[in-house]
């Protein structure tokens, strides 16, 4: 091949390949949003398991990646709907019933209210129960189930029972017994909540779950600090018969040592009406106190 | 087609081919050592060599099917890689394979299009050509049903279809019966009479002797010699085959240093030119009857064997 032809053909190769990459992005953009069918490929988990000819493990992993990606994309867009999450998880766990992370992670994010999750408690509970059925000696799953019952459904009795069952599994984490006890005595308190989330953080290996637990713990800190700050403001009001205008006033009055920062590192905001709120509620989605009106 | 005597059809300028062999430890294997060769236009040139000498390698290099490690060639004055050259040369590969699901007419039509022969010319030439190579009856039979000899004829046809000025043939007589070989020989002579240059490789000396103006000998990748056939034949020692009846004269003939072979009543002796007269004199006896005297030998064999042997000596 002459030198000239070689150069021309090489340029053609590079140009057409590079252009194809750019056009591909346009194709992605033009492709209609994945309908449920697209994301699932095939809706029937049983059929899929049989069709996968023994490679169900691999297929389960592929579906698992789709779950994570699906959730991630939706979450990024602050979506309020996660319709495909439950079916996807159902397929994944049918293909591989021992994929523990799918149960743990899946039910956590199924249960949480949007936009942090699908807000579907029924599905979450069903999923974990399925996990326990196939993996009766995995004590992590009892924590997950009990947690949903405690946190989401506020069914402390059921939660206590679950933790109790879990604690009887060989090699179970000792925290399970303590959790069961707390459910029966002190279920509604902040302390219990902190203990629960700390336990989740300690015993889980999944980074998303741990990050989620940390976030909850941070929100609990806010739930504790905001009432404390508001009571300081109240004492100021009682003393000076008006609301403080800024943190600096409180600092000069000796009530505070410095500008109070929330767990994300942002200063709390002192409102004119004496209420304390956080600057960026999006970063602390689980707080009950300090939410801007 | 006009050639000036001075025009050179083929120049091989130091073509060389080495192969790397082996997967882990690569070694070099020499296919062709660099050599120079010139073939003037209008000549029939015999590219001789034993099997495995590198004749097919040379032809594949010239046809652009493989690429040389070094060196170049010129065909009809142009670089051998020039696509324009290809429409002026014809090639018959060794043991050619053609698309067996095609008929010879379809094959020639396809090849003709690729060589740039116009549709009108193809319509005229193909039937004539098939007739000329004796395949007119099988013009519409699929090639998968052809014998080796028939395929060879198709090969010749496709090599000359586009009326090239130089024709390259790789072992054109291989696998043919005597009839087939004679036909090919006549075809080559006819091509040459039309003014075409013919370059063909063979290991059969008799064919080269009969057809070529000049020959070269290739052995183990090395060009060992080039010679003009007429001169070589002239230089070769001539012998005569003498056949007679009459066992009585055998001792006299053998006394001259000539060995005799008896087959029934006939006796045959191969006699050097120098001793011929003496032997014939002995056969004028009344108990001997001369049957025939035939010149034999005067062949390229010596030239060939010497050149091949030289290489062997050099190697040891």
């Amino acid at each position, binding site marked *: 091949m002459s030198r000239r032809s070689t150069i021309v*053909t090489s340029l053609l190769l590079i140009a057409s390949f590079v252009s194809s990459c750019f056009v591909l992005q346009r194709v992605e953009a033009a492709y209609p949003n994945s309908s449920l069918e697209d994301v699932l490929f095939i809706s029937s988990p049983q059929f899929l398991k049989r069709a996968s000819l023994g490679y169900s493990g691999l297929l389960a992993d592929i579906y698992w990646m789709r779950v994570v*990606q699906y959730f991630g994309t939706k979450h990024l867009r602050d979506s309020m709907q996660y319709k495909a999450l439950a079916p996807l998880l159902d397929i994944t766990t049918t293909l591989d019933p021992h994929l523990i992370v799918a149960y743990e992670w899946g039910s956590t994010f199924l249960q949480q209210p949007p936009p942090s999750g699908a807000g579907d408690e029924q599905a979450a509970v069903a999923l974990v129960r399925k996990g326990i059925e196939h993996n009766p000696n995995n004590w992590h799953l009892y924590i997950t189930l009990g947690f949903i019952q405690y946190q989401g459904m506020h069914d402390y009795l059921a939660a206590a029972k679950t933790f109790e069952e879990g604690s009887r599994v060989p090699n179970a984490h000792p925290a399970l017994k303590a959790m069961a006890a707390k459910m029966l005595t002190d279920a509604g308190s902040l302390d219990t909540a902190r203990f629960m989330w700390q336990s989740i953080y300690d015993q889980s290996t999944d980074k998303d779950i741990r990050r989620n637990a940390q976030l909850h713990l941070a929100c609990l800190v806010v739930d504790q600090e905001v009432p404390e700050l508001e009571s300081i403001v109240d004492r100021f009001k009682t003393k000076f018969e008006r609301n403080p205008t800024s943190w600096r006033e409180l600092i000069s009055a000796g009530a505070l040592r410095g500008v109070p920062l929330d767990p994300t590192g942002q200063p709390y905001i002192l409102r004119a009406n004496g209420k304390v709120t956080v600057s960026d509620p999006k970063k602390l989605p689980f707080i009950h106190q300090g939410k801007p009106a | 087609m006009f050639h000036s005597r001075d025009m050179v059809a083929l120049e091989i300028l130091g073509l060389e081919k080495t192969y790397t062999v082996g997967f882990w430890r690569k070694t070099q294997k020499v296919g062709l050592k660099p050599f120079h060769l010139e073939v003037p236009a209008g000549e029939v040139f015999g590219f001789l060599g034993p099997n495995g000498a590198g004749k097919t390698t040379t032809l594949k290099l010239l046809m652009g099917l493989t690429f040389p490690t070094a060196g170049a060639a010129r065909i009809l004055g142009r670089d051998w890689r020039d696509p324009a050259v290809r429409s002026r040369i014809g090639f018959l590969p060794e043991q050619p394979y053609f698309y067996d699901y095609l008929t010879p007419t379809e094959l020639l039509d*396809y090849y003709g299009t690729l060589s740039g022969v116009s549709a009108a010319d193809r319509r005229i030439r193909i039937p004539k050509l098939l007739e000329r190579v004796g395949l007119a009856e099988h013009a519409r039979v699929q090639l998968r049903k052809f014998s080796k000899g028939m395929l060879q004829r198709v090969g010749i046809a496709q090599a000359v279809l586009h009326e090239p000025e130089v024709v390259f043939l790789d072992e054109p007589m291989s696998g043919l019966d005597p009839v087939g070989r004679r036909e090919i020989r006549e075809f080559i002579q006819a091509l040459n009479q039309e003014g075409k240059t013919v370059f063909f490789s063979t290991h059969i000396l008799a064919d080269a002797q009969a057809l070529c103006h000049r020959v070269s000998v290739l052995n183990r990748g090395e060009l060992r010699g080039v010679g003009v056939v007429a001169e070589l034949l002239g230089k070769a020692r001539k012998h005569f085959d003498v056949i007679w009846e009459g066992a009585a004269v055998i001792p006299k003939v053998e006394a001259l240093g000539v060995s005799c072979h008896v087959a029934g009543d006939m006796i045959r002796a191969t006699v050097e030119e120098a001793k011929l007269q003496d032997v014939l004199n002995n056969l004028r006896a009344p108990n001997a009857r001369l049957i025939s005297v035939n010149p034999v030998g005067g062949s390229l064999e010596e030239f060939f064997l010497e050149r091949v042997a030289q290489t062997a000596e050099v190697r040891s």
Partner: protein
Amino acid sequence: MRRRVGAVAFNTFREAVRDRVLYNLILFALLLVACAPLISEISVGVQRVLLINLSLTAISIFGTVISIFVGISLVSKEIERKTLYPVLARPVGRGEFIVGKYFGLAGTLAVNTFAMTVGFYLVLLVIMRNVTAADANVLIAIYFLLLQFLVVIGLALLFSSFSSPLLSALFTLALFVAGSFAQDLRGFAESAHGVTRWFSWAASYVVPNVDRLNVITRVAHDEGISAALVGYNTVYALLYSCAAVSAATLIFSRRNLK
């Protein structure tokens, strides 16, 4: 040049026909005919969906298999059988040869797909008793399948220009499967870090993104396909094939024939 490329293409098509590649149409017809009574048993609403899914999936599978297996033999068979010698000794460029082969096989698949499409519409007519405007949508899905074949042929040619028939088939098939999961590759890239991330991201562009060429389910449910998607997919398939064929030409031009 065009005449030579055309001659190679036509000869490739002729070879495919005489090699009885088109006999797969008989299998396809048998498949449809065998399933037709089954389909009539099912309730009317699902009939059409099932027929479309079945036919288009069959077209896709048959076509892809032909693209791969005939595609890889295009070059390797000729080298093995030395039928290439008298061809390349003529004024045919190596590139012209490859391009001619490409168009020849593409044409074969176009004819094949056309015949299957006709068959499909006939069965549709028989079962549904009438053809509506919505059925024209199916043509778009079939067109996308053709684009898919173009891409696969390009890849098959590329691999067969330098490796053995067996390896070529494996590589082409592997890339096709990877391309069907291209979206997941991209998702994987997003959740990965470092070298793995970069590698997956690059891979998602190198593999042929045939998953975006599959709109069978969508069409079965009568959902529309935007003109933009048709346009971009066409351009993508052409560009990708062009790249594959260019690469095949470059490699084949350097190849010493045995």
